[in-house]
């Protein structure tokens, strides 16, 4: 999208809602979708005299993230108050971490289109509480406040301005999304707002050292919108600069219906948050033993898993990347590969047809209509030559639609591969007899017609001829 001569600079601030059972500073439940204010106690409502008590589980989860991105976990971090008035912020301040975050200086690697790796710096990750929600619909001349979400723990992950295109930003966002789900610290549900991001976008002349003035696009909650919002914003800024204008530092909102960003508030209108350490909470002090104990709970991380798939299963980096994009998909793949005994075949199929079907129906691997065992059953029939890969695609589709085993479908539709040499030879003879012209041409040097004969024989056998046998026999017969 970026016009010639311009370079895009992007940094992301990702808010991941931590999957704790209760809120970060109160005992209220965090479950999504409860009736308004049914999950808000006196602490969440900021009643006079109440005090926050830190949920240790939220700290543990943030530390887990820090270790997974190879960051420094602070031995001492401090909660601060971010002061501003808004009805969905009952205390009149948000408890966050400001000068001393729990996690600092980490990084993640993303894979670019050309297959090369790029390292994205993570400046910091800090703990904070979410705000509630204001509801405006169906309430004439009034606003409703739902404080169920108020006090839900968040980890805000701030990247360095290391991304140079919307695609890179999406790749990084997906990588973080994958990681928090591997770590089981966030459910990653973007529709429910459990995982959302703000994008800081600026442009500068190629070769320029100084960053351009940035705009911050707030609260984008889908991968698609992130890409669209950034591309729109980049084009807007370039147009502005090329026509002699200036980019102003401001906060913008992305409107997915119109596909555009628009100004929310300028720097001048921005709040002075008057941060200061929260005197109601003690500094969070973490000793080495705690950090090491958390490290022991780290699962095999996506990059480690992908590397193992390449090294020990012989997969391509691309397939390994796709198959490790979620913990559940990787587990599904590993199960299929183990049952079939052919990791590459399993990879082709899981990353290919299955992934396509899931994508088409907008399903997660855990919602797949074909479980790993059945899927392995299908691939097993390719391995033992009962069906060809091509037929297998049809069988797969039938399995997906009907929910039956591969064997049942092969049996009922008579899709079993023809491996009887005599039967294949008979079909070849018939095709040759029907197409004397093509045969003469082939024999006079038109090698390309080989494909025509393969197609005709396959057609005659209903696609069931074993492709390898067919090739061999056909070559012999055509040669005369």
């Amino acid at each position, binding site marked *: 999208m970026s016009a010639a001569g311009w370079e895009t600079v992007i940094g992301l601030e990702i808010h991941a809602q931590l999957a704790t059972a209760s809120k970060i500073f109160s005992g209220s439940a965090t479950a999504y979708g409860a009736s308004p204010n049914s999950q808000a106690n*006196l602490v969440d*409502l*900021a*009643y*006079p*005299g*109440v*005090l*926050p*008590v*830190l949920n240790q589980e939220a700290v543990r989860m943030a530390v887990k993230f820090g270790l997974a991105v190879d960051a420094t976990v602070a031995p001492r971090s401090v909660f601060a*108050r971010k*002061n501003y*008035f808004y*009805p969905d912020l*009952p*205390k*009149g*301040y948000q408890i966050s971490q400001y000068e001393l975050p729990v996690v600092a200086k980490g990084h993640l690697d993303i894979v670019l289109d050309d297959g090369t790796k790029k390292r994205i710096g993570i400046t910091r990750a800090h703990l904070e509480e979410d705000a509630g929600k204001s509801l405006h619909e169906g309430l004439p001349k009034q*606003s409703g*406040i739902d404080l169920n979400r108020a006090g839900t723990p968040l980890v805000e992950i701030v990247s360095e301005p290391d991304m140079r295109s919307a695609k890179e930003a999406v790749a990084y966002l997906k990588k973080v999304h994958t990681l928090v789900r591997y770590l089981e610290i966030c459910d990653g549900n973007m529709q429910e707002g459990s995982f959302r991001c703000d994008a800081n976008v600026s442009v500068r002349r190629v070769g320029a050292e100084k960053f351009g003035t940035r705009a911050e696009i707030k609260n984008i909650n889908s991968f698609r919108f992130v890409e669209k919002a950034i591309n729109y914003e980049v084009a807007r800024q370039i147009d502005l600069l090329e026509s002699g204008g200036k980019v102003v530092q401001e906060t913008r909102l992305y409107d997915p219906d119109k596909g555009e960003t628009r100004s929310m508030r300028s720097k001048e209108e921005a709040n*002075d948050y*008057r*941060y*200061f350490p929260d*005197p*109601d*909470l*003690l500094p969070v002090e973490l000793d080495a033993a705690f950090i090491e104990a958390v490290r022991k709970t780290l699962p095999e991380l996506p990059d480690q898993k992908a590397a193992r798939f390449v090294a020990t299963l012989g997969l391509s980096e691309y397939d390994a990347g796709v198959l490790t994009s979620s913990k559940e998909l990787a587990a599904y793949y590993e199960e299929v590969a183990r049952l079939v005994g052919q990791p590459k075949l399993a990879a082709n199929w899981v990353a290919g047809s299955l992934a396509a079907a899931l994508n088409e129906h907008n399903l997660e691997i855990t919602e797949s209509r074909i479980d790993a065992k059945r899927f392995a059953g299908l691939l097993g029939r390719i391995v033992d030559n009962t069906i060809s890969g091509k037929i297998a695609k049809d069988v797969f589709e039938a399995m997906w639609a009907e929910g039956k085993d591969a064997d049942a479908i092969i049996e009922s539709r008579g899709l079993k591969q023809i491996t009887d040499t005599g039967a294949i030879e008979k079909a070849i003879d018939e095709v040759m007899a029907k197409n004397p012209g093509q045969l003469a041409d082939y024999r006079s040097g038109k090698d390309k017609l080989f494909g025509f004969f393969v197609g005709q024989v396959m057609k005659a056998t209903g696609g069931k001829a074993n492709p390898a046998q067919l090739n061999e026999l056909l070559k012999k017969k055509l040669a005369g």
Partner: protein
Amino acid sequence: MHTSTLAELARKLRAKEFSVTELTKTLLKRIETSQPKLNAFISVTGEQALERAAAADAAFAAGKAGPLTGLPLAHKDIFCTRGVKTSCGSRMLDNFVSPYDATVVEKLEAAGMVTLGKTNMDEFAMGSSNETSWYGPVRNPWDPKLVPGGSSGGSAAAVAARVAPVATATDTGGSIRQPASLCGVTGIKPTYGRVSRYGMIAFASSLDQGGLISQTAEDAALVLQAMAGFDPRDSTSVDTPVPNYVAGLDAPLAGLKIGLIKEFFDKGLDASVEKCIREALVVYEKLGAKLVEVKLPALPLSVPTYYVVAPAECSSNLARFDGVRYGHRAKDPKDLMDLYKRSRGEGFGAEVKRRIMTGTYVLSAGYYDAYYLKAQRVRQLINQDFKRAFGEVDVLMGPTAPDVAFEIGAKASDPIQMYLNDIYTIGANLAGVPAMSIPCGFVRELPVGLQICGPHFGESKLLNVAHAYQKETDWHRRMPAAYEPEVLS
């Protein structure tokens, strides 16, 4: 019976000289008759008190009474009390009925004490004279023209006038000790973290500490025993065992090293008050204590430091009072901003607004380092001063306030003069150390308070030192003539 100390009442109840119900009725009557001239109470909870008194009588009858069962008290209206208005002395919370009990209230009720009502106070505990209360000033029982001190003026006046034997109070910069001094009663501000702040409406979180006002150190020991202790609902409360305060009361003082804070005996101190303090020190010398002069060089900076830290925290703590969920809400707001501005503008009084504005200013971008951060650094120095002093001496002594009670209105228009009334008390809050004020004489027929300050978690020693003095003197038994039983029934 109402001139009795809490300890005496406990003995008399046990000896069945009267019942808890009789005691409660007598005190409720005294509160009622004293209220027009004293204005010490914001709410009186007679009905609940009599119910609890009946339960306490039943406990006595069943032989299940504990050391505090049936003993009456009043709570400063800063402590949340379930089902009872908790106003914090402000119009903002005039309509607020708390749905829960503060930890302190819960603990004292669990110990069997009977709550008589909620005492008047400076609005949100911001004041040194009780004049900032939405409910009007409390009068000093010794002279109705004078202030009782603040912010716990209602609690101090109630105990001084013997309408309640003991009252809870809070101290952010002297709000227990200064009114105790001005009313001639005993007040203790425990170590920061000793008593839970849960349910105590926050003014300045890093300085606020709950405590109490009583006639004697012995009574303070009895009640503090039940109030103190770790509370998982308050992250700043400290998980360290609570010693037996009563058992430590009679330890001998021989060899006690008393540090006299040089900076306190300065030109700001009234000469007659100083004389009173010096006489009290002589009593201690007779008890075998040794007097040493100590220097706390950073201490004179405590007032400016406090008036940065406390307003900063208050500006944020009071942001929750926005008219949205509870408390005062402006009528017919035009929009959100109008709702905020008018609810807060109408709900808060002048002193609260002054502090919110000061606090907002010192935390603002560009000023934070020069004010808030610098104040925090000075606070560290003051802390170190106290630490060093307690390396040399057991307790520190000096005046609680620079002078005796002043006239209502005398300092109301001059905040700086008002703030200087806390010049000797603020240091203990900034350092988080415990401190007491005990009556030690009279100047111009008005009580003077001696301040005793100890190291962190040194409450036992403080109570011991105060009790030893009260065994030798009777200043703490003096009561204002206007409230003698024959005058006020």
